[in-house]
């Protein structure tokens, strides 16, 4: 050992915490991207998040109703330590970081030196760099629970305020940031107005319904909305969430169990109603996306609905094909979180959902179960064409994005 002369260099970041720069946090992803040559690939992240409540004073200043806006702004200005005005949130939001084990989920307190753009633009840019993305679709976080708000008006006020704030303050800050206008879906007439208002706004590439809600998606009240969305040519996305107070989910004593089921359950219910009530037959050009439920629920539901449908076709007379055929043709699926403990199961899922055309990459950054593009790139059963489709080209075709990047 006497001959040893080399000293190891200390890593400048000994421990990641909530102040770590996203570029450092994602440094391994960036290096992986460079070694795989992602810069030559179109990579579209269909589902990433920012924490809009950090900017809640700004967002609420966009509320149109003058009385509610005034109330919200006074509250934001004067109440210390109180939750953001008007948001219902969910208890589960407090458990996402597994007791501090996942600091980027806890919060992003990193230094922002740029003053020419909003903080969320800087954070998004850094994540896009780390993950080697060309486009990132930005979704809110606590607003995902607005479908459970007891005041349906509040969903209208806040969705519309958020959409305006996002498209005026955040989206223009970086060419690759795009958004899906969030619809106040519990008030169908207002959701329709939101579509009409937002359809031609720069950076709005589709519409988002937060899935945690109890209003059936096949209600007649929504037909005009679906027709209008179909006419825009832009997709409708059902973004999953959970509701721990749901009586059956309330039996789960862990966030692990509640989250595993909750994020799939809401979309399982909505998809079932969507298909069995023949929405794809009524609106054949309407493209729907089923976001952040993972993929393993899809083969389950396909087989389950097919099996039952054959015996009870009279209850779903609009269907001309098997439920699974609609699910594999009229619906698109972002992959996150990629459940991949059984690789044969993943391969079978990909076949069943027509992954080569219907599957999209999503990171869900900065959430605790985010995925890097390597979850697709590293799959042993895909050829390069399929990987390129899933990582970006399918999304480009679906949303009309530039295949050469923004």
């Amino acid at each position: 050992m006497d001959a040893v002369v080399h000293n190891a260099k200390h890593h400048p970041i000994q421990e990641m915490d909530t102040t770590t720069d996203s570029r450092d946090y994602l440094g391994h992803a960036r290096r992986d991207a460079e070694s795989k040559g992602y810069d030559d690939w179109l990579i579209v992240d269909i589902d990433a998040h920012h924490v809009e409540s950090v900017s809640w004073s700004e967002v609420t200043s966009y509320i149109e109703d003058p009385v509610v806006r005034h109330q919200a702004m006074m509250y934001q200005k004067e109440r210390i330590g109180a939750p953001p005005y008007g948001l219902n949130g969910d208890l589960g939001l407090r458990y996402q970081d597994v007791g501090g084990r996942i600091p980027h989920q806890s919060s992003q307190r990193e230094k922002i030196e740029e003053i020419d753009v909003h903080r969320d633009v800087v954070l998004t840019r850094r994540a896009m760099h780390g993950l080697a993305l060309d486009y990132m679709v930005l979704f809110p976080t606590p607003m995902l629970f607005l479908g459970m708000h007891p005041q349906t008006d509040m969903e209208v006020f806040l969705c519309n305020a958020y959409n305006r704030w996002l498209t005026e303050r955040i989206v223009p800050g970086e060419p690759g940031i795009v958004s899906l206008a969030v619809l106040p879906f519990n008030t169908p007439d207002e959701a329709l107005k939101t579509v009409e208002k937002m359809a031609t706004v720069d950076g709005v590439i589709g519409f988002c319904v937060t899935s945690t809600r109890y209003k059936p998606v096949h209600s007649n009240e929504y037909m005009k909305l679906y027709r209008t969305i179909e006419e825009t040519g832009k997709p409708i996305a059902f973004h999953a969430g959970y509701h721990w107070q749901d009586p059956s989910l309330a039996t789960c004593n862990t966030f692990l169990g509640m989250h595993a089921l909750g994020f799939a359950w809401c979309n399982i219910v909505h998809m079932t109603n969507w298909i069995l009530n023949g929405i794809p037959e009524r609106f054949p050009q309407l493209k729907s996306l089923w976001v952040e439920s993972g993929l393993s629920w899809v083969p389950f539901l396909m087989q389950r609905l097919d099996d039952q449908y054959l015996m009870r076709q009279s209850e779903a007379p609009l269907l001309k094909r098997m439920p699974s055929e609609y699910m594999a043709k009229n619906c698109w699926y972002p992959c996150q979180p990629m459940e991949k403990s059984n690789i044969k199961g993943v391969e079978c899922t990909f076949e069943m959902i027509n992954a080569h055309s219907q599957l999209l990459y999503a990171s869900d950054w900065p959430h605790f179960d985010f995925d890097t593009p390597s979850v697709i790139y590293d799959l042993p059963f895909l050829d390069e064409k399929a990987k390129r489709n899933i990582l970006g080209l399918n999304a480009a075709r679906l949303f009309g994005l530039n295949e050469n990047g923004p």
Partner: protein
Amino acid sequence: MEPVRVGAVDEFGDRTKRVVFIGHEEIGVFRLGDEFFAWRNKCPHQGGPVCQGRLYQLVRENLDADMKSHGRVYDDEKLNIVCPWHGLEFDIRTGQHPGTSDLALEPATVQVQAGEIYVLL
């Protein structure tokens, strides 16, 4: 590769770590009591910077003789490194994920000589 000096033993407190570069490799060196362990800073889950995570004691379920649960407790003997990307935990001593034998950290060789710690790749 030649052994590379990571530091003196007394620079490491009990239950602490140091992340270093050895060539282009990132290695985490951990002290637990009088023992040292070294693991590559690449998580077997999605390649995250596992050694740059936080240290947590292993959590156990507190069952009584009737198999009734009385919540969870920390195990004072077992210390895990938690990957900061998605929270997967790995035993500092064995490198194993506590919940599956399918996932483990990749080891590096660590040696202690004359009060100095060396890592060999």
